[in-house]
């Protein structure tokens, strides 16, 4: 019975969060004129025409593939580097290590627009504008402080005796990392993967600056539809609903790991 108030709060929270999604979905399956009718039209003929139009006719599937390529590479690279760096930093108790950590945090505080300009200049100088590597490197750079901090917070919970034990058992430093540290923080690793994926997948500003026609990602492509003409709204809503699906599917698959990881008890004797 004590759960009831909590339940109501969570319910309100869900409604608040789901309303835009529902609205978007409804917009995507109606004629634009119906979507904006006042009072709202509750009865209408649903159509998936706009979904088809945006993804197939307008070729948005290419932007989805671009986004997927950039995200997968960016996440793989930044989480691998992040885990290794975090492991090293969690085991080094030196001043230099904590200095490094805080400078990472400072980097994270820069507004993205501040970084986007130099990234653009650099990418242009090395002729990488509108290429996958430029986007991947930029996102990795942006995301790296975060993955290091997050992974370090999970790794910091691993008791040092486990590492001593691993050394006694004959682990090389790499094996200690790979066969002891990493499996223990696996739930945390998945949380880091998810957050990195969200960042890479939704990245807009850098994509806007660094991509042109060949490597354009979904968020940029969607943003190009919309404002000016009301008839585009159903299309951009269809795209927005579509962009959610892969993440939703990923979350469903990872749910078990994520809940464990977020509950922080990544390590328990």
């Amino acid at each position, binding site marked *: 019975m004590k759960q009831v108030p909590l339940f109501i709060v969570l319910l309100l929270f869900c409604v608040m969060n789901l309303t835009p999604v529902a609205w978007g979905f409804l917009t995507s399956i109606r004629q634009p004129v119906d979507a904006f009718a006042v009072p709202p039209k509750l009865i209408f003929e649903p159509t998936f025409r706009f979904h088809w139009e945006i993804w197939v006719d307008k070729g948005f599937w290419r932007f989805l593939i671009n986004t997927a390529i950039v995200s997968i590479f960016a996440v793989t690279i930044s989480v691998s580097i992040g885990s290794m760096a975090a492991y090293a930093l969690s085991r080094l108790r030196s001043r230099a290590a904590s200095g490094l950590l805080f400078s990472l945090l400072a980097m994270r505080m820069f507004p993205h627009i501040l970084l986007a300009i130099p990234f653009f200049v650099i990418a242009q100088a090395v002729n990488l504008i509108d290429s996958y590597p430029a986007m991947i490197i930029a996102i990795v750079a942006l995301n790296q402080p975060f993955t290091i901090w997050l992974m370090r917070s999970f790794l910091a919970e691993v008791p040092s*005796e*486990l590492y001593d034990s691993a*050394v*006694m*058992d*004959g682990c090389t430093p790499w094996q200690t990392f790979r066969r*002891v540290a990493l*499996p*223990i923080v696996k739930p945390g690793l998945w949380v880091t993967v998810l957050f990195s994926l969200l960042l890479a997948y939704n990245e807009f500003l850098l994509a806007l600056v660094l991509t042109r026609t060949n490597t354009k990602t979904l968020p940029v492509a969607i943003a190009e539809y919309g404002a000016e003409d009301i008839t585009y709204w159903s299309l951009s809503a269809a795209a927005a609903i579509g962009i959610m699906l892969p993440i939703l599917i990923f979350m469903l698959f990872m749910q078990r790991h994520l809940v464990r990881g977020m509950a922080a008890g990544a390590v328990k*004797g």
Partner: protein
Amino acid sequence: MASVTIRDVEKSYSEHAVMHGVNIDIEDGEFVILVGPSGCGKSTLLRMIAGLEDITGGDILIGDTVVNDIEPKARNIAMVFQNYALYPHMTVRENMAFALTLNRTDKAEIARRVARAAEILSLGAFLDRYPKQLSGGQRQRVAMGRAIVRDPQVFLFDEPLSNLDAKLRVQMRTEIKELHQRLKTTTIYVTHDQIEAMTMADRIVVMNDGRIEQIGTPLQLYDTPANLFVAGFIGSPGMNFIEGEIENGWFLTADGIALPTPPGAAAGKVVYGIRPEHLVPDPAGVPVDVTVVEPTGPETDVFGKLGRQPIVAAMREGPPVAAGEKLRLTARVERVHLFDAATGRRLPTGIPGQAA
């Protein structure tokens, strides 16, 4: 199996010296216990033997080999940690097999050794469980199993029982002792439970502040402690220390009360040491004002004041006493120790078997 020799070993953390020249000779198959107050360097010494810490000075030998620069896995040592340090993501079987898997031992051989360890420690039913599905005592046994499967030359234990409740601790104490009798592997065991030390050890090393105070069998330490520190550390309740002076062959407390004195004591300021269990009721004895009475079952600890100095007696028989009463006690003279008040060293007395 092998002997372990610790020769003039020193340890500093940056500039801060925590170990000042430690020498211990541990024989092949011996069960040696390191005791001492918190922070005296027991774990540090154990970790240096294991190879988990560098050695700042001196040598550590396993068998005839100096192992200072040999990496831990090549020392053929197994260590059991206080918090067990089991890998949470591996089953009991995988935990025990891990070291063997790493050095690519043949699968059948791994299975054979794990089965043997599981049998010795009655862990057969738990092999496919994860550590979090085990009780504290079972985890402790897995930690030992992990050590056993490697068939090491030396076992190191760092306070392995201190996370267990009192009853389980007594049971595991016996199990470890039996294990040692069965495997006869050289064992170095750290504890600050002096009952564990007394009951399990072939020899005890008493450490204090990075130095060794005394090495000896449990009874040697009990009967002939080298100094005040060892005398106070071994035994519970601890030995009574009464300040005073030897005059004309008699010990007089600071309050001028005379106590039975061993023959041959030289005049001067001394500390008079007598264990609580060696004080006996005696109508002709000295008067003690009883302040607290604590029955423990087999004996009753009587706390009181002798003049102005505190004193404890452990009574096995005699009439019951209550707080506020006066009790007349005397010391069994053959059990009296005299310590130099300045240096804390035990002074030789004329009592046979108490040679310095």
